[in-house]
């Protein structure tokens, strides 16, 4: 697609429910990133997918968080048993094949705003 697409744009859920957030990256981009942005905070890295390599899950805050990337394209971030502190904007980004220099320019989606009541 022309850009990174995320859905839903807004999600309100009750504490304890599970949620799924979807990211459709730019076609041909091999790298996909999930970040979380809480109110007034910077971006917190969650997980990184690169091609067929094992994902870097080092940023996931707890085992309630998981993510998949099917067929090297669409990714789903799942949060189980949501808590109020999970309320944030979840941002997805993609980039082309990383260069040896590490100069990865990210293209972001508009984000999914999650509110846990």
């Amino acid at each position, binding site marked *: 697609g022309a850009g*990174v697409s995320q859905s839903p744009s807004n999600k309100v859920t009750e504490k304890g429910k599970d949620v799924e957030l979807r990211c459709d990256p730019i076609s041909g981009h091999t790298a996909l*990133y999930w*970040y979380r942005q809480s109110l*007034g*905070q*910077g*971006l917190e*890295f969650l997980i*990184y997918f690169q091609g067929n390599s094992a994902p*870097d899950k080092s940023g996931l805050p707890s085992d309630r968080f998981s993510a998949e990337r099917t067929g090297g394209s669409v990714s789903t971030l799942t949060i189980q048993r949501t808590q109020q502190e999970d309320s944030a904007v979840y*941002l997805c*980004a993609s980039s082309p094949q*990383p260069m040896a*220099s*590490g*100069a*990865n*320019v*990210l*293209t*972001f*989606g*508009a*984000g999914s705003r999650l509110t846990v009541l």
Partner: protein
Amino acid sequence: SQQGEEDPQALSIQEGENATMNCSYKTSINNLQWYRQNSGRGLVHLILIRSNEREKHSGRLRVTLDTSKKSSSLLITASRAADTASYFCATAVSGGSYIPTFGRGTSLIVHP
């Protein structure tokens, strides 16, 4: 903890003035990027400067990098009301997995 930290946290100026934002980081980097975020939107890439570069320009944007001080600055000249946004620096650590790490950002307000 954040690898990069922007300063100031907030900046309020009049249209036509220059805006300068700074970013400090802790470890050696391959490159540093600046992104912009309009309220309620995703981030948009502005400019990338590599560790062997000292200055880079793009339109009204000027970025400097001082690796000895582990700092970078973003200068927006002749600011416009449309420049109102949050600005983030992102660093890719040398020898790391090249996952950009973002700071908390500088909130810029340009008054018309």
